[in-house]
């Protein structure tokens, strides 16, 4: 692997005699989103603050591009600082300044930019984050979710290389949580920054992060891709994930991925014993991205939630389903052959036509494109393999529009 952009080596930090970080090691790679999870009070924010230099380590090093921060000279430090932005847990906006001035602040105070350029840059960010109408309001006059977005806009205004997110979603409702995270993800893809995030939103963080690190008792106990974390058999990780695991996905009201995997395995076992067929169906909302671009992230996530609710109504009691990404839902249908599955999908597509899944069309004549791929699962086939077949086998993909 190439050299990590940011490297944390044996970091120790204690506050009034209490060790918060105790030899933490972590590598963050360029262009990736790394999510740090762990128990609350486990030093996640403290770790994040070391990366931007708000805190100085008791011992250990933070390396930026291979260069230890502690041995940087003034100019290097300045260059390093200007590449990093920080999104605070509770927004940390300035009460005495308007939203506009808050966002403009990093530009106005530290760069030489003309008033018009500042205004243009701020307007652009306001529009992108769907908060265009509140530029003249004060932070205390807007909702918590809006404050978060303003703070995100402020962090992004300098076009930083690295953005650190300290719990960007706490205190938001499920739709906005998903919206913020999908926003982070889509910005990250578009602007190509490196993201480091402290968050607990499972499963969303698995969709958007390329790497996950888990912090426990001041040490990083796991570091790697999210799939590996889910497969890990370390007791501390299993215990943590189970503790977090809510019985239902907050956005869709469906079961969790973990539960889906379990029921898949159970079905797999059963079909091996009884030779009963069972199906895997993957619904994807193909042009959800279009809603995001034309309208907002919040709207896209609302559509997803509506769609999931409608879908749930048509599934049978023994079917289990879960969200599998920002725009995909996976359903395990036990005891169901290919034909039966197809009929079921057709019925769902017909009934969806009558429902108002898209509350406000991003443009006239907008149709939501849904494709439902289905495949019969064979015994001893992994869920990923069946998914692969379901999504890509042209013959068995049923596409329909909801207008």
């Amino acid at each position, binding site marked *: 692997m190439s050299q990590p952009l940011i490297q944390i080596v044996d970091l120790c930090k204690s506050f*009034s*005699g209490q060790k918060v970080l105790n030899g933490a090691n972590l590598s963050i790679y360029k262009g990736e989103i790394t999510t740090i999870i762990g128990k609350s009070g486990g030093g996640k924010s403290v770790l994040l*603050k070391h990366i*931007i*230099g*708000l805190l100085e380590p008791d011992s250990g090093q933070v390396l930026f591009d291979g260069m230890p921060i502690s041995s940087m000279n003034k100019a290097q430090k*300045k260059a390093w*600082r*200007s590449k*990093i*932005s*920080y999104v*605070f*847990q*509770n927004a*940390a*906006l*300035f009460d005495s300044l308007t939203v506009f001035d808050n966002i403009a*602040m*990093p530009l106005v*105070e*530290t760069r030489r930019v003309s008033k018009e350029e500042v205004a243009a840059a701020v307007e652009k960010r306001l529009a992108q984050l769907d908060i265009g109408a509140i530029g003249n309001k004060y932070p205390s006059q807007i909702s918590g979710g809006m404050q978060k977005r303003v703070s995100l806009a*402020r962090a992004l205004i300098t076009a930083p290389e690295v953005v650190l997110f300290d719990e960007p979603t706490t205190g938001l409702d499920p739709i906005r949580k998903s919206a913020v995270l999908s926003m982070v993800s889509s910005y990250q893809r578009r602007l190509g920054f490196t993201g480091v995030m402290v968050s607990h939103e499972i499963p969303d963080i698995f969709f958007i992060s390329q790497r996950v690190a888990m912090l426990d008792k001041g040490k990083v106990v796991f570091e790697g891709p999210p799939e590996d974390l889910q497969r890990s058999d370390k007791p501390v990780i299993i215990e943590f994930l189970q503790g977090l695991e809510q019985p239902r996905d907050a956005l869709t009201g469906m079961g969790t991925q973990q539960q889906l995997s379990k029921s898949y395995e159970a079905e797999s076992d059963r079909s091996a014993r009884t030779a009963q067929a069972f199906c895997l169906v993957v619904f994807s909302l193909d042009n959800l991205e279009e809603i995001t671009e034309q309208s907002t992230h919040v709207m896209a996530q609302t559509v997803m939630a509506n769609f999931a609710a409608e879908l749930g109504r048509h599934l049978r009691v023994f079917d289990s389903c879960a969200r599998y990404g920002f725009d995909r839902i996976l359903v395990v249908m036990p005891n169901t052959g290919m034909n039966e599955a197809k009929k079921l999908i057709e019925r769902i597509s017909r009934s969806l036509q009558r429902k108002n899944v898209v509350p406000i069309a991003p443009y006239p004549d907008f149709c939501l494109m849904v494709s439902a791929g289905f495949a019969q699962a064979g015994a001893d086939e992994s869920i990923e393999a069946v998914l692969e077949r379901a999504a890509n086998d042209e013959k068995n993909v049923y596409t329909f529009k909801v207008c």
Partner: protein
Amino acid sequence: MDTPNLNSSFPASLGRAFIFFVQELGGITVFFLKGLALIFTWPPQVRRTLDQLYFIGAQSIPIVMLTGLATGMVLGLQGYYALAGVGSEGALGSIVALTLIREMGPVLTAIMLTARAGSAMAAEIGVMRISEQIDALQTMQINPLRYLISPRIAAALVSFPLLTALFDMVGIFGGFLTGSMLLKMNPYLYFHRVRASVEMDDVTGGFIKAVVFAVIVITICCYQGYTTHRRQGGFGARGVSNSTTRAVVMSCVLILVSDYVITSLLR
């Protein structure tokens, strides 16, 4: 700072308190000097300094005039009766003017400003600290000392002497009100005594005090707010209220102590 299992005997805790005190003193001094030096960095922070002048200076005019008038009137009354006892009512103007210009003006103005502006500043900066706004400034590469503290120091250094002068003037007028209007003293004699007895040294001494008090009040109040997070229980509303209380109490005590020291040095 308070690692458990330390020797908790009296000399040990006294020693720790002393070390803590020396550290705080050093911290406050460095804090002030940095804030002062950063006033002169380019570009000047005109807007923010103006806002602070408005807050510390302009908005304090009514309260300073009110306390000044009351103080002058009381001095006039007390002085009159005391002087009448030895048959020297004529000296009332001297008594009132000298007391105001040398002592009461600078001290009471500083205490009023601590109560009105200092406490508000400690609370405001404290809230900014605990809601991570100061950290946010740092992450945006904005020097929080320059952004928050320097305009306040500049504004205080201008406002304190001006408000002290206002206090003196209104106070002398208050003494005149009781002396001449109420007690029928010769108004010309009053102002003649005021003019004859006040020396340039008295006036400059008063201004020196005002400047020193400005430094004390602004530094203590800003520092207490700025370091809210460093003290135990320094989180949330409790932390801010602690800082504000400490700021006001420390400022007032130091005003009175330093007043004595300056007075003895100036003589």
